[in-house]
């Protein structure tokens, strides 16, 4: 099991490296090598590390542990085929982790990152709408049931395409450099990550790797169903590259606009659910 964690984190970091590379190439820059994010994680773990004097020490360190722990748990939830509600819960609680990172240091940049993550929390309700749409068809939220449903009826991507789009947007909002990445956008240095340097940052990189892996893996499992493992990895990469295209050609929205756009998407999804409720007996 521990090997899954390590491999998932490494592969997730590799995906983030590919993400950066693709964006760079679209913008006609050479870009860093694809394994740059893995190197980053290692590099940061060798740096000397302490806790800033102004920080709330326990929270400053504790939140790093919590961050890795919740995404490790998320990976196990996905692997075990448990309820995707748990996965979504962990996803939402990643917001709390962002607050914790941002606020615990006392730095104004971190604080702005934390405040922005509060703002954007309300806009991530498309996730729940996605869930409801899936529940309409599968009648269960256990991942293994969803996969079993797709083995019979074909991929959910073709059955509920709007739900797939909503979850795609949600993953987009978690990727760096995207239109909704207001939490760590560059005008506030690195947002909530600003004050976590050295080993803390390395641990944060591990979290990012796990998070990217879990979200993309869950996306493929939920909307395409059980496939050979190599094909799943290939599809994850394909989804990520498509996301990178979106990130490369869109500007970062201003914080409140980002939330408004996401809320409008939620509204559209709710209308779609209403339509489903009307049509499907």
């Amino acid at each position, binding site marked *: *099991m*521990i090997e899954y*964690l390590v491999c998932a984190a490494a592969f997730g970091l590799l995906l983030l490296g590919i993400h950066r590379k693709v964006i760079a190439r679209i913008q006609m820059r050479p870009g860093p090598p694809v394994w740059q994010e893995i190197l980053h994680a290692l590099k*940061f*773990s*060798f*740096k*000397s*590390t*302490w*806790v800033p004097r102004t920080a709330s*020490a326990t929270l400053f*360190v504790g939140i*790093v*542990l*919590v*961050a*890795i*722990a919740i995404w*490790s*748990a998320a990976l*196990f939830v996905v692997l*075990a085929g448990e309820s995707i509600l748990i996965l979504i819960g962990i996803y939402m609680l990643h917001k709390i982790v962002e607050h914790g990172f941002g606020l615990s240091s006392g730095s104004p940049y971190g604080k702005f990152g934390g405040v922005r993550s509060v703002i954007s929390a309300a806009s991530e309700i498309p996730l729940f709408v996605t869930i409801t749409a899936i529940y309409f068809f599968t009648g269960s939220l256990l991942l293994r049931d969803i996969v079993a449903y797709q083995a019979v009826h074909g991929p959910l991507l073709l059955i509920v395409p709007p739900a797939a789009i909503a979850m795609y947007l949600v993953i987009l909002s978690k990727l760096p450099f995207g239109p909704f990445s207001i939490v760590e956008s560059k005008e506030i240095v690195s947002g909530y990550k600003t004050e976590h340097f*050295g*080993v*803390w940052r*390395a*641990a944060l990189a*591990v979290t990012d790797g796990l998070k990217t892996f879990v979200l993309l893996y869950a996306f493929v499992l939920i909307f395409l169903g059980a496939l050979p493992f190599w094909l799943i990895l290939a599809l994850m990469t394909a989804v990520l590259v498509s996301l990178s295209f979106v990130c490369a050609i869109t500007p970062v929205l201003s914080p409140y606009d980002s939330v408004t756009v996401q809320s409008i998407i939620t509204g559209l999804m709710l209308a779609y659910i209403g339509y489903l409720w009307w049509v499907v007996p």
Partner: protein
Amino acid sequence: MAMKRKTVEYGLTASALIIVIAWIALTTGAIPLWAAEAVFVVAFPALVLTLGLWWRAGGGEEDFPFIGY
């Protein structure tokens, strides 16, 4: 805040030991899967942090840090 090498070493050894024990127990079937997963969720973050800290933790006889340009 100074990092004590001993503390970090203890933490690293403890978390690594716990993970190895849980792993062995899982492969021999002594504990169910969920228990092993719970142990990993708790011990893996500690392992990541202490491993990183251990690489750089001072032993008490360091040089002066370079603070000026």
